[in-house]
């Protein structure tokens, strides 16, 4: 099983709207061009389309709200709270 290629294609489908549209138009062709094996192509042809849509939306929201700046802010506030308590 070409597990890495499979994960790479899933990551692309979850994060790239155009790639997702192309895939939904031709799932077998997209999967074959990604170098997947026949059983993997079959599984992607039968993909849970509702789940794919909702997952992609959810991941996009997460990407928009996370990041180094937010982590730094959390650390500073933690330090401040502990300093105030001391």
């Amino acid at each position, binding site marked *: *099983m070409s*597990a*890495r*290629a*499979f*994960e*790479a*294609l*899933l*990551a*692309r489908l*979850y*994060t*790239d709207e155009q790639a997702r549209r192309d895939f939904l138009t031709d799932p077998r062709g997209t999967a074959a061009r990604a170098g997947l094996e026949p059983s*993997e192509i079959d*599984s*992607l042809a*039968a*993909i*849970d389309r*509702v*789940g*794919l*849509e*909702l*997952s992609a*939306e*959810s*991941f*996009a929201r*997460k*990407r928009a709200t*996370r990041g*180094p700046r937010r*982590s*730094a*802010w*959390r*650390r*500073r*506030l*933690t*330090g*401040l*709270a*502990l300093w*105030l*308590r*001391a």
Partner: protein
Amino acid sequence: MRDRVGLGWRAELAAGILTHADRIDLVEVIADDWFECGRRELRALRTLGAQVPLVLHGVGLGLASSVPVDGHRLEAMARVLEAARPEFWSEHLAFVRGGGREIGHLAAPPRTAATIEGATANLDRARTIVGSAPLLENIATLIDPPGSDRDEAVFVRDVAETANAELLLDLHNLHANSVNFGFDALAYLDALPIHRIHAVHLAGGRWISASGGQRRLLDDHLHDVPEAVFTLLEELGARSLRPLTVIVERDGSYPPIAALLDELDQARGALARGRARRVRAA
């Protein structure tokens, strides 16, 4: 046996947590927030650990993958562990990147032998670089992961047994997946190696709709813990023979701290009911 119930450390909740530390058995800190910081900031984490029992939780390693986990991330995790000295650390049974792309959150991997092999190798790598293995957490998923050849409970069990890992069972993730994909949450619980469950997450979520109107339950950590999740905690308490560490996770839309403390008490109550059932059955 002493079960413990605590709260996810969030900066927004810091004042409430520190003020009510007598009602919070421990806190869980997101390790990844501290990966990029220097010694001075890590001292704050050490100070926090001196004031309240602490565990660490990772969100970005991507252990359930055929791709080897990034050594730099593991080294960063080791640094944070060294600073915080947590009782344990945990990570998700998820993949978070593929083909050089960051997905941005936890994605359910194909539930296959190849993923189990990859996760086991990644756990070994974590043991080598970090010095200890994380508890592995089941994740919520909005998609039935394609390419899978086994159901979720069997997958979690197989990874835990193959990698000799302990588990962090997220009961809202279990609840959400059970309603989204139509399986019996109690049967799932019975399929797991209960003796490997050391910690538990509780959270809430909301229903979302696809463009065609189909609904799925999203685990968003922005809502109260639903009754169904406390019921699952009671069931787990009735099945487990070991002390459990329970963490309530809340990532936003924060209610007053009193409401969160009430959720901790509800968790204690659910566990106590489950423990009492087990004692009666014995």
